[in-house]
């Protein structure tokens, strides 16, 4: 293999080819879930509760069913009643009866937008009109909208059967879980501290904000089999959860993953999929359902708002000695917030001997939360990374140096689990420290620079891959990992690298649940790591089989055949080296077609770290924040396709900035969502961001054949804190609430100025 720029001798890995699905995507040919159409297809729509908390006394559907063009109306009565049972979906465990109740409410609605009924009709407009004719009799109950209100004694109870260990089997509660993590002795720890900072933070509920709403087309056949076309991050999850909700055998459902318009964790569960099959069963036609943007915001799964109390102490030299955290996360209508991940990721980049974390999962009358890119970690980092910034300020230590001094390395204990193996946290800090951005001087009034760091575990889980070798020496690569951000190109690059082929001679194919072995979600930063591993092994399996064929042709033993630089060779006279192409043309005569395959349950995941620096300018009269410059450094193990790795880093940074500045759910005092549209759910536009500089740091994951670390998530963790720290350095206020929208920041600045003025007045100046 020719030596490449990075010195590791890769020929394909590390280059930037055009992605294989690129032309379809830039010409509009690529089919996303909502683009599918079938003959006789009907359109489904969902009726949703207009109340935050209500009992359903009755549902009358006859008028809706009688509207010309309406072919079916369904409610929870049309789904089997399920027993309480936990099942894995993406990175979370799910209670199936609660999942079903989220898909169609059973007896009780728990948030504004909770699905109550669904119709199928010959046009989406008729379906919409039919919803107006469904009569639901609600008994409205008082809403509980915040963790504080939910945890108060006497709070209205959302789920009468919910219990937690602390409060015992008899006590109705809104607290689903209390987790605790400990290390060392927290009291002794704080005694050793010269500086202590303690703050309380509130972060607002935010949404992943994928541009493509949820969709599903269900086709039920008379033989009891069904096919679902949908945009999902996990076709196998859709299959298993839909089968459970519908009461069908899993093998009777085939899920065909369409192209997907963003997910960020929000499309690792199900909403419309079982409804599409149910309505198809009732009507005998394919049925397409799509969510409107309002439905996406009201009724899919945003991530938790939270309240976090964070107390940390360090010596006067800046050595962290203790951290104590109390955190409560909104689970939404059903248990399952990412508070556990929040508890395990907070302060994870640091070596702190004494730690106590109390974490609470609390139900409230908001939509059931779903994963959002490193779920739980950004909330937590907002607290810990700003407290750390204050401590660094108090010690007079540069924020990067503070992190290097306290940084976790190989052997540092984790909050839960074994000590770290080889990791790249300090490398990311050093990359920021030596970046052109950090080295540049930031000049001007009301401008400040802030640093933040973050951690994410990443996951391994299961993947399958098949390499089909064609007689012309090209290969098709079959995988089950949905491609959200360019991963199919990276998979093809791995296969091409191993097989000695040109990257354009490997055709990656993302396929359905019948055509490939079990593959877990595209999420958890696992696709390059785990599916890449499966692809690597499948390609190696292909090479092994090819060696056997070469051996046959040369009358040698397979162990005597070598493969390198795209050539098969063996010692001996008359042995002419063969390329994969040449050998591929001789498969029939040597035993038949070759398919290489591999499955993995990937172990030894390498966790990810990111460090981000942001420069801001604050308008002192309005509280508006301009992001002047942003640089993110992330340890990616090995960047297979650097452009798409950069893309992940930039995308997460942009989402983190939106989370920091303007994104939040506004519920009124009745618990109704006021901003269920993209006008008032304010995500950053092109005009709100600068170019985002990236530093790819490569510290290989031990044990992985290519050293890959997951890249997709961690970049969203540092930015809220980095922006908060930059604001603090710009105008001297420490913000403890997200988002740091202009009204909040202005109020904080005016208080500070008012305080300063009255201090000055008191001092007689």
């Amino acid at each position, binding site marked *: 293999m020719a030596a490449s720029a990075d010195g590791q001798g890769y020929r394909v890995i590390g*280059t*930037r*080819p*055009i*992605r294989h699905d*690129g*032309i379809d*995507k*830039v*010409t*509009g*040919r*690529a089919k*996303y879930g*909502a*683009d599918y*159409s079938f003959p006789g297809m009907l359109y489904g729509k969902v009726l949703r509760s207009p109340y935050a908390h209500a009992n359903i006394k009755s549902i009358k559907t006859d008028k809706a069913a009688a509207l010309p063009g309406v072919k079916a109306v369904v409610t929870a009565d049309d789904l089997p009643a399920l027993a309480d049972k936990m099942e894995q979906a993406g990175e979370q465990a799910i209670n199936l009866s609660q999942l079903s109740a989220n898909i169609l409410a059973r007896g009780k609605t728990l948030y504004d937008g909770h699905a109550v009924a669904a119709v199928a009709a010959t046009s989406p*407009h008729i379906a919409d009109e039919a919803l107006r004719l469904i009569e639901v009799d609600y008994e409205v109950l008082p809403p509980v909208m915040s963790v504080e209100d939910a945890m108060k004694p006497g709070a209205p109870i959302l789920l009468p059967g919910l219990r937690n260990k602390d409060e015992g089997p008899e006590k109705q509660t809104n607290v689903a879980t209390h987790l605790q993590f400990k290390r060392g002795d927290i009291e002794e720890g704080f005694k050793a501290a010269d500086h202590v900072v303690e703050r309380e933070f509130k972060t607002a509920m935010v949404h*992943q*904000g*994928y*541009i*493509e*709403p949820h969709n599903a087309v269900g086709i039920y056949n008379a033989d009891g089999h069904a096919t679902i076309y949908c945009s999902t991050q996990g076709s196998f999850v859709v299959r298993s959860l839909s089968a459970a909700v519908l009461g069908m055998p899993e093998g009777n459902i085939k899920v065909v993953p369409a*192209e*997907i*318009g*963003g*997910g960020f964790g929000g499309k690792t569960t199900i909403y419309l999929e079982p409804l599409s099959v149910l309505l198809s069963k009732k009507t005998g036609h394919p049925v397409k359902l*799509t969510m*409107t*943007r309002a439905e996406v915001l009201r009724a899919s799964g945003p991530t938790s708002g939270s309240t976090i109390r964070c107390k940390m102490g360090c010596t006067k030299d800046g050595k962290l000695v203790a951290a104590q955290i109390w955190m409560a996360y909104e689970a939404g209508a059903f248990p399952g917030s990412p508070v556990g991940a929040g508890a395990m990721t907070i302060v994870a980049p640091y070596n702190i001997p004494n730690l106590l974390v109390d974490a609470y999962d609390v139900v409230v009358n908001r939509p059931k939360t779903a994963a959002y890119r490193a779920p739980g970690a950004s909330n937590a980092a907002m607290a810990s990374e700003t407290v750390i910034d204050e401590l660094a300020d108090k010690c007079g230590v540069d924020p990067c140096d503070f992190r290097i001094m306290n940084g976790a390395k190989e052997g540092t204990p984790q909050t839960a689990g074994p000590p770290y193996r080889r990791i790249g946290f300090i490398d990311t800090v050093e990359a920021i420290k030596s970046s052109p951005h950090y080295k540049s001087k930031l000049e001007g009034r009301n401008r400040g620079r802030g640093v933040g760091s973050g951690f994410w575990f990443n996951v391994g889980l299961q993947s399958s891959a098949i390499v089909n070798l064609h007689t012309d020496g090209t290969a098709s690569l079959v995988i089950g990992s949905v491609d*959200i*951000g*360019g991963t199919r190109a990276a998979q093809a690059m791995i296969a091409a690298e191993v097989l000695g082929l040109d990257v*354009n001679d490997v055709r990656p194919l993302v396929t359905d649940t019948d055509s490939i072995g079990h593959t877990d979600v595209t999420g958890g930063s696992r696709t390059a790591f785990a599916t890449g591993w499966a692809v690597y092994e499948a390609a190696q399996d292909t090479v092994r089989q090819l060696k056997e064929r070469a051996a046959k042709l040369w009358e040698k033993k397979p162990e005597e055949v070598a493969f390198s630089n795209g050539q098969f060779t063996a010692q001996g006279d008359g042995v002419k080296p063969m390329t994969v192409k040449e050998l591929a043309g001789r498969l029939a005569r040597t035993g038949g077609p070759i398919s290489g395959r591999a499955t993995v349950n990937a172990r030894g995941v390498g966790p990810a770290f990111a460090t981000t620096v942001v420069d801001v300018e604050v308008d002192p009269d309005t509280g508006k924040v301009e992001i002047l410059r942003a640089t993110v450094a992330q340890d990616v193990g090995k960047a297979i*396709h650097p*452009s*798409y790795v*950069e*893309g*992940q880093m*930039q*995308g997460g*940074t*942009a*989402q983190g900035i939106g989370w920091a500045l303007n994104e939040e759910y506004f519920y009124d005092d009745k618990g109704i969502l006021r901003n269920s*549209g*993209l*006008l008032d759910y304010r*995500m950053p*536009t*092109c*005009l709100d*961001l600068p*170019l*985002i*500089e*990236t*530093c790819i740091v490569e510290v290989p994951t031990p044990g992985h054949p290519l050293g890959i670390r997951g890249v997709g998530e961690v970049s969203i963790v540092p930015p809220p804190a980095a922006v908060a720290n930059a604001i603090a350095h710009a105008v001297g206020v420490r913000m403890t609430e997200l988002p740091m929208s202009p009204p909040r920041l202005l109020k904080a600045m005016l208080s500070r100025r008012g305080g300063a003025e009255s201090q000055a007045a008191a001092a007689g100046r």
Partner: protein
Amino acid sequence: MAKKVVVEATINGEQTEFLCEPRQSLLEALRDVLELTGSKEGCLTGDCGACTVIVDGRPLCSCLMLGVEAQGKTVETVEGLAKPDSLHVLQQKFLEHASLQCGICTPGFLMSAKALLDHNPKPTEGEIRYALAGNLCRCTGYDKIVRAVADAAQTLASGTGQGRGGRLGSGPSASEQTERFLQGQEVK
């Protein structure tokens, strides 16, 4: 139910006739009637730009125009950008710069960018960002999109014409590109 109306319009250069109900938007007419599913629905309120098409030379959100309003008008969608054997420069640059991750916003961005370059062949970074402010992207942070549009503008200005079919070797790294861009040099 109001009867369907016959609408005559020029769509991607072709004289076209289609039937739609007055309540169907241009977006629905394109996607559900004409099967041109390249334009996407993201919000239905004109806040995301995923449905952007060009009508009589102006970029607009097809979700906020009725299909019947297209009568007598010229409509350009993403499906009309490429020639049979070559991509539009913008499409080529989006691929080279990895300006798409999930790709759902890409058709809308391409149309807004085309409308920009049709009116202003030498936009500054600020002008590019302003022209694209009506298109939301959640995946990329816009960085590689802005670079691609700037690069396309340069390529068109230097007269090297339509893009190639799609094979390419390595490009410069993002930091190299950043330094050049920030210094006002051309982005390759």
